[in-house]
């Protein structure tokens, strides 16, 4: 009876060690707005990348039927040719090119040797009218706001004769009025016959635009809800998103929390590193006690990493305000070195980009933050360094033949352990772990949880930033919830549930 523009059948996609999608089927009706919801890492983006050809045909199992014909896209170009356009959360615009140049990038008007600029700008202006953006197409991308950039992306999609538009969290960085504008635009498109798939965490927005909602969890489709047939409230969606059982994926832990407060952050605010008018951390206050694991839950982009890095010797952000007390004494940490000296450690979420020197051996990475421990008068005792690195390797169970192994050759889980080893070697009192188990398999996760438990048992304190709610619930003594730069909730582990965390995140979005 209903006409499906897209059917994805039994899609399974595996990454080394992880099954990102497990037998997922999705049906999208022509001319509807279809919402995909689920936690971070549930597999929404992977599914859309399979659809758009970023993961080429053959790298996944299953079948895609589009407009009644089976499709085998091997590049993005293939899928765009058939009218499927994906707009990523991280906008793919070139800042120093004009709106029009960006819109027709890779799809230039005229011939390859002779771009027809008149046609380019005229067509661009026409499309900007359609999306309701009142800017000249000659304006450079860097000079317009993020909201407007999002509209440029949509105009760009229109220039490719889009039939199926995929938006990955389009409103994540938009304010309320820009978001409404965008959502209304999608409704306009619907009338013109353009089908949209929207990935979003903002349930109020989804309730506003979506015709069907598909909930994905742990790489599987949980259910598809038809808004026309069933009355769907947000509680219903949240239950679908998080309703998994907590099995014994976490080591048993004893509580070591003492009353001594080791870290106190008061009224901490940080501006974005590049766009100083954007507040990424907004008046945050929290405390950390000795022997405590404090979780900071929230969605990606909530400002957690920015908070942690700005505390760690101002390594991120502009115009950092607020006070910081370590062991009750107010301190000003002006550099990473200061922070390390005051017993802080920040274990980054981006181990390859910010954490490890991949071209160097384990030994060198282990000692890097505290070379003074293995050197006298600035001369390194290479043998001592080697032995201490071996100690750390054994302690953390890093699987490698020798500590001279180049870190780039290790598996993700072992790299994460080397990163932990590096910071444990620095002997901090307070460790900030940013997504410590991202991208590693279940077994390695368990070992890292054990290491965290050993740390607090030895009197250290840990702040654990994680987007995986079960992990936060399973590992922490106390949990703060962050959303849009603010702390929006605090709860003890015993009283916390995934539903409580999710609803405190979403309550803010609703208010916005």
């Amino acid at each position, binding site marked *: 009876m209903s006409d499906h523009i897209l059917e994805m059948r039994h899609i399974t996609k595996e990454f080394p060690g992880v099954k990102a999608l497990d037998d997922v089927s999705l049906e999208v009706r022509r001319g509807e707005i279809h919402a995909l919801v689920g936690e971070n890492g549930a597999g929404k983006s992977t599914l859309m990348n399979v659809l758009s050809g970023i993961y080429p045909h053959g790298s996944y199992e299953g079948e895609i039927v589009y407009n009644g014909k089976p499709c085998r896209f091997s590049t993005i170009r293939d899928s765009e040719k058939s009218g499927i356009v994906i707009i990523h959360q991280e906008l793919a615009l070139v800042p120093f090119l004009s709106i029009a140049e960006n819109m027709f990038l890779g799809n230039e008007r005229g011939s390859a040797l002779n771009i027809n600029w008149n046609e380019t700008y005229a067509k661009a202006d026409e499309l900007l009218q359609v999306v309701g953006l009142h800017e000249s197409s000659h304006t450079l991308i860097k000079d317009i706001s993020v909201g407007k950039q999002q509209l440029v992306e949509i105009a760009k999609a229109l220039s490719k004769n889009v039939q199926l538009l995929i938006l990955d969290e389009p409103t994540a960085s938009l304010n309320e009025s820009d978001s409404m504008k965008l959502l209304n635009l999608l409704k306009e498109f619907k009338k013109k016959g353009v089908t949209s798939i929207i990935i979003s965490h903002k349930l109020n927005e989804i309730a506003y635009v979506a015709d069907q909602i598909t909930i994905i969890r742990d790489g599987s489709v949980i259910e598809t809800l038809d808004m026309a047939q069933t009355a769907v409230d947000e509680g219903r969606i949240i239950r679908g998103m998080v309703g998994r059982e907590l099995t014994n994926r976490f080591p048993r832990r004893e509580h070591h929390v003492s009353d001594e407060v080791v870290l106190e952050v008061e009224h901490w605010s940080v501006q974005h590193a590049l766009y100083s008018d954007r507040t990424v951390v907004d008046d945050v206050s929290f405390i950390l006690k000795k022997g405590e694991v404090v979780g900071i839950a929230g969605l990606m982009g909530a400002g957690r990493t920015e908070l942690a890095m700005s505390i*760690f*010797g101002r*390594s991120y952000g502009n115009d950092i305000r607020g006070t910081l007390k370590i062991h009750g004494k107010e301190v000003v940490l002006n*550099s*990473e*070195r200061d*922070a*390390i*000296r005051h017993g802080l450690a*920040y274990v*980054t979420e981006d181990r390859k*980009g*910010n*954490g*490890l*020197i*991949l*071209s*160097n051996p384990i030994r*060198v990475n282990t000692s*890097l*933050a505290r*070379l*003074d421990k293995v*050197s006298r008068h*600035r*001369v*390194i005792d*290479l*043998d001592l360094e*080697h*032995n201490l690195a071996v100690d750390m390797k054994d302690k953390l169970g890093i699987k490698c033949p020798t500590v001279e192994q180049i870190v*780039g*050759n290790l598996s993700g889980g072992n790299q994460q352990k080397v990163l932990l080893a*590096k910071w444990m070697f620095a002997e901090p009192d307070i460790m900030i772990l940013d997504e410590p188990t991202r991208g590693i398999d279940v077994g390695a996760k368990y070992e890292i949880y054990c290491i965290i438990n050993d740390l607090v048992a030895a009197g250290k304190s840990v702040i654990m930033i994680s987007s995986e709610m079960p992990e936060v619930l399973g590992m922490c003594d106390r949990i703060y919830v962050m959303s849009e730069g603010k702390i929006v909730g605090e709860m003890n582990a015993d009283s916390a549930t995934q539903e409580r965390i999710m609803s405190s995140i979403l309550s803010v979005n609703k208010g916005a």
Partner: protein
Amino acid sequence: MSSKNADLWEKTKSFLLKNTMVIALVLVYLFFIIKSEGRMFLPQNINNLIMQNSYVVILAVGMLLCILTGGNIDLSVGASVCLVGAIAGVLMVNLGWNIYLSMVVCLLIGVAIGVWQGFWIAYVRVPPFIVTLAGMLLFRGLAQAILGGLTISGFSEDFLSIFNNYVNIPALDSGAVKYSSIIFGVLCCLVYIVATVLTNMNKKRKGYTAERPASLYTKIVIICVIVMLLMYKLSLYKGIPFILLWLIGIVAIYTYITAKTTFGRHFYALGGNEKATKLSGINTNRIYFSAYVNVSFLSALAALVVAARFTSANPAAGTNYELDAIGSCFIGGASAYGGIGKVSGAVIGAVLMGVLNLGMNIIGVDSNFQKVVKGLVLLVAVIFDVVSKRRAVKSIA
């Protein structure tokens, strides 16, 4: 049995990969010895090899530290050599200053050049390519203005002797064979052997993993043979040139700094991953700054060497020296992306370039064609580096 063979093959392969450039150097040298019917191996030519390439070694060591920070190069070293040489000429010849005072002033000017460039690169973050390109014009121009387009000659014998003379101990070196050279070689070998054996015993005593005796002794034998051969050849000519002692000193100091000190380690870390280095509490700006101050300091030293060798300061001095230095580093295995490279590698690269130059001159290759050969050697060396690394990455995935 087959696994043993495979193991042996793996070991040979890794040995070959690690020492490719040494092997290449030996092969190229043998090639020229055969082609030149032994002339390449004459004592005088070995002496020339050292004298002609001393400045390349000094500059390559300085350049290496810049390249380590992330593949950054210094294009201005040739111009700095010219400028400092010009100033040396003015001070020593035209103004007749004391030579030691003049040399100190020259080295300080080198440091000043480095501070100027290092400041823009490290603290203002102007790309090094731009800053040093500007420096190349700037310093060359200043040098030519100082010299007024003319050559200053007539350096005092006292100054020239510092770099150009030979070790001469009357009791040993009055005959045709300069025995001081042989004695020096023996001493070097003894020191080397004792030091290696002692460190190894020390390692064993402290319970660290020591090197296997077989490979240890092979290494000792090979190095001692090379040293003794070199010293024997030199003893048949004029003995040990002073400049060789300078080079040994510089190479030893920088080898120690890069391999054993925290300061040296920071260069490798910075080139490997700048963000991670900064988050480890290391002042990355200061590392960039010191790399450029250092390379300019060594350029100033090279300028004095060059001025002494040509016994003059001329407006064209130092032309293309930066390219020799950069080439030596890359041929010697420094990564074009930074973070990888050794002082010994840069020295081997410089020697290889020197052997190519000298060898092609001796067998009479056309000078235009010489450039072609050197260009190809540089390209092949870097291709080898990139490809072998890519293969390593693939084997992980």
